């Protein structure tokens, strides 16, 4: 890591920290910044303290975790598939998760146990990952990422048909809940969810960050990667599985939040290039920060009503991305 890149990461970390404080300060109850900082540093008084520590902080932490995971998974899939259009959901994970979640809603499981929906979504996502992998393994010798991409796209399309089928049997209420889930929300955040997710996501994020050099080589080409000492098949399989599992957990807890995994890595690339040693950690930080900002808007823009955060990420992210794209020559 060069000094310049360390500085870039530091600036993103400061940005994310500032967004974290701002996101906690803003919300339905007006909290002065002073009270927020007091509560965060272990002091403060109720009710500000409870609001900050038990409501807004876990939600902000979830935003950072999910946003960081989506940003990172997007960057990894783009390198693995050598395709700038790849995003975390390109290989059908979101379709599988959505089938699980919609089934849970339509069949009313979520009314019996609050954990039924995320668990059903996770099972659906894991099923999608297994299915895509098995199709790809059967269609081609070795692990051909072009076949993987095709398998992911068709499996995703099939799952979306299943979702529409399920929804055609749904009551109006179930239809609405399923629709909202599919647009993404971080409202389910509490400390137990955040800690569980963190215990799962943090090791996966660390392992993917360690794959920066092999991913640099894979983005050059598989032959180059082999000749520069990479065990190509192992790196491809590991990065696919770990990134997919990362997305599966995020989507199970917060629904399908689009565009983060596409926009964030490209914003970094347009600013600072594609060296994955910088791109991967920067995508985690910017993804987390972007999600914090989007969730804050989702909570406050139409308060007391809450907007789906996936809608915000798309509405804000896409124009921002277009500006970046047209200003800079790739």
């Amino acid at each position, binding site marked *: 890591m060069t000094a310049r890149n360390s500085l870039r990461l530091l600036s993103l970390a400061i940005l994310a920290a500032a967004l974290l404080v701002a996101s906690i300060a803003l919300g339905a109850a007006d909290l002065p910044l002073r009270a927020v900082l007091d509560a965060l540093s272990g002091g403060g008084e109720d009710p500000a303290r409870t609001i900050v520590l038990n409501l807004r902080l876990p939600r902000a932490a979830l935003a950072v975790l999910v946003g960081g995971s989506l940003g990172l998974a997007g960057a990894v899939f783009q390198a693995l598939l050598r395709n700038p259009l790849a995003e975390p959901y390109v290989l059908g994970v979101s379709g599988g998760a959505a089938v699980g979640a919609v089934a849970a809603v339509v069949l009313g499981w979520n009314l019996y146990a609050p954990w039924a929906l995320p668990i059903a979504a996770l099972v659906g996502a894991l099923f999608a990952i297994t299915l895509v992998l098995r199709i790809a393994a059967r269609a081609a010798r070795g692990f051909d990422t072009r076949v993987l991409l095709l398998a992911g796209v068709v499996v995703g399309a099939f799952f979306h048909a299943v979702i529409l089928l399920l929804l055609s049997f749904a009551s109006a209420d179930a239809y609405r809940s399923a629709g909202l889930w599919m647009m993404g929300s971080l409202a389910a955040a509490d400390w137990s969810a955040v800690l569980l997710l963190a215990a799962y996501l943090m090791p996966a994020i660390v392992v993917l960050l360690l*794959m920066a050099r092999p991913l*640099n080589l894979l*983005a050059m080409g598989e*032959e180059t990667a082999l000749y*520069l000492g990479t065990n190509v098949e192992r790196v491809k399989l590991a990065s696919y599985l770990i990134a997919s599992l990362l997305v599966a957990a995020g989507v199970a807890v917060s629904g399908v939040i689009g565009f983060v995994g596409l926009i964030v890595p490209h914003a970094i690339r347009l600013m600072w290039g*594609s060296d994955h040693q910088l791109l991967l950690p920067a995508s985690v930080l910017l993804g987390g920060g972007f999600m914090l900002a989007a969730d804050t808007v989702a909570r406050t823009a139409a308060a007391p009503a809450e907007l789906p955060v996936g809608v915000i990420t798309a509405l804000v992210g896409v124009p921002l991305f277009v500006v970046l794209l047209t200003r800079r020559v790739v």
Partner: protein
Amino acid sequence: MSGPPVFEARGLRFSYEGAARPALDGVDLQVGGGSLYAIIGPNGSGKSTLLKLLLGALQPQAGAVSYAGRRVGDWTRRALAQQIGAVPQGEEMAFPITVREMVAMGRYPYLGVLGRPSREDREAIDQAMERCDVIELAERPLSRLSGGERQRALIARALAQRPATLVLDEPTVSLDIRHEMTIFELLAELTGSDGVTVVLVTHNLNLAARYADRLLLLDAGRPAAEGTPADVLSQEIIEKVYGWSVVVAPHPGPGRDAGAPQITPLTGEG
């Protein structure tokens, strides 16, 4: 002029799935240490396949390849990457990176996953870029280089590996005379003063004749001739393998390679 064999291959056979005939069949090869060895032959004669077998990207269905006395498959990829620098053909970076970032990849075999680049790594990168005359382009995006600059940057990456052996697949394809000559001069310098062994595939028979110590001529996957340029590049052999009438005349000089056989294809023949 050449030391003990670096690459040794015996009885190589390889067929691609679903192909009517093997891409390679019965190929033997011995590349002496510190020599420049050129593999030539018509399109589809198996040159690139042979390189991939030497580099372990493909596994032979019969026969064996060894590097420095050890079967290629028995080397770890990382140990092999510290020995052999390879310049494959036609790989495109999917995303924008600078020349320096790309050349720096040549040090990955030494760094592994976590290692921090040392002073030696940075020196190897700078020296390789200087040697290939791309140091002024270091901060430029790879996508904005010309064909010649790009090829030199790829060779710089291989040199940053500080390899004992350099393997190149048509390194001068689509380059103009000056850029092509620069690359061949560099390869000659590497084999001469640096003792690097060079194996390359090329379509330029006349430059192969002037620079290579030995040639292997492939024809439809089989060895048609092997030996010094004077042995391999005879009118009879070339006409038979390429199916075109040629004249072969010694290079008139000046230069250290005066007398090397030079091939001129004739017009109005066939």
